């Protein structure tokens, strides 16, 4: 088959021309990959923006919550109008993805991650955790691992940020790095409500610059995974402290006694 003839200015008409100049990026695989973003808050907004601009099309956004005014200092896709009408975060983010990528076909799931069937996890190429509580992270991590799907988690508080990459069936999962302090926090959140609705007290500090850095690291790891370059992935964590100007890799070793790894089958 003959190649398209070169035309003057053609490099500037191709949306992904600059991406194509990164040799290892597999743009076809990126366009074809199914990515589920769990959580449509600050990280979810930034992650979805980066995914869409990077060429991902099939993005599922999961969130049960609605937009409020205090989200607006760090959430690109949310507006005061969305907050005023209590719009669902997942739907607003999905609409935002469509605005910045005409080829994207985002799907909003307005529900808790615990309500998403295991079969949906199995359909994904990568799952991304943009959550705001440990319990939902544990659920998403374990279900991703059980489905054999890479899980990329991000979290932040103030100027502290973290990203983590799990690549089943090898290596550690997010839960391998948890300890008694995580259990206490998870229990506190649960006992605050008496039901499966998270209630943060005190509210956690959050601002956009740390959100941008963590989400960028997360999406970059997904680009590597989908492009078949797991060899370049973090092994397996990234820690960021914007107040001390620290950005470094850390490693969570696999814990053979972790409940995710001792599940039968």
């Amino acid at each position: 088959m003959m190649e398209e003839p070169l035309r003057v200015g053609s490099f500037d008409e191709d949306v992904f021309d600059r991406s194509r100049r990164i040799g290892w990026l597999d743009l076809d695989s990126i366009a074809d990959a199914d990515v589920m973003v769990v959580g449509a808050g600050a990280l979810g907004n930034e992650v979805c923006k980066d995914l869409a601009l990077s060429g991902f099309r099939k993005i599922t956004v999961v969130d049960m919550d609605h937009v409020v005014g205090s989200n607006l200092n760090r959430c690109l896709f949310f507006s005061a109008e969305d907050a005023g009408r209590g719009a669902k975060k997942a739907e607003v983010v999905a609409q935002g993805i469509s605005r910045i990528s005409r080829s994207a076909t985002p799907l909003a799931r307005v529900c808790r991650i615990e309500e998403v069937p295991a079969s949906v996890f199995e359909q994904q190429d990568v799952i991304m955790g943009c959550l705001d509580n440990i319990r939902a992270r544990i659920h998403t991590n374990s279900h991703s691992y059980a489905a054999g799907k890479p899980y990329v988690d991000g979290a932040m508080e103030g100027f502290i940020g973290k990203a983590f990459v799990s690549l089943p069936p090898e290596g550690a999962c997010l839960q391998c790095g948890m300890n008694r302090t995580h259990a206490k926090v998870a229990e506190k959140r649960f006992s605050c409500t008496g039901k499966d609705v998270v209630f943060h007290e005190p509210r956690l500090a959050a601002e956009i610059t740390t959100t941008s850095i963590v989400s960028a690291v997360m999406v970059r790891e997904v680009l590597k995974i989908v492009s078949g370059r797991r060899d370049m992935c973090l092994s397996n964590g990234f820690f960021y402290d914007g107040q001390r100007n620290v950005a470094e890799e850390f490693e969570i070793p696999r814990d053979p006694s972790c409940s995710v790894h001792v599940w039968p089958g």
Partner: protein
Amino acid sequence: MSVRIKVKNAETGATVEMELEVENTVDEVIESAATFWSKDMGAYVLRKGKKVLKGSGSLKDAGIRADDVLELIPDPEGG
């Protein structure tokens, strides 16, 4: 057998010297250090070099020796 180690507070750079039994767990070290620095309720991990230490494991299991410097880092929860 007891060992004397240093724990560094990643958020401030401060260090505290701790005298511990090798049977003490990493969880116990985390909670003691977090209490010493009056840390907010939250999740923390302890690492030696790049590696995060298993909470329920003992210092002996983790290969901790006298004069080691461990770092207490916050594990953020927000999204």
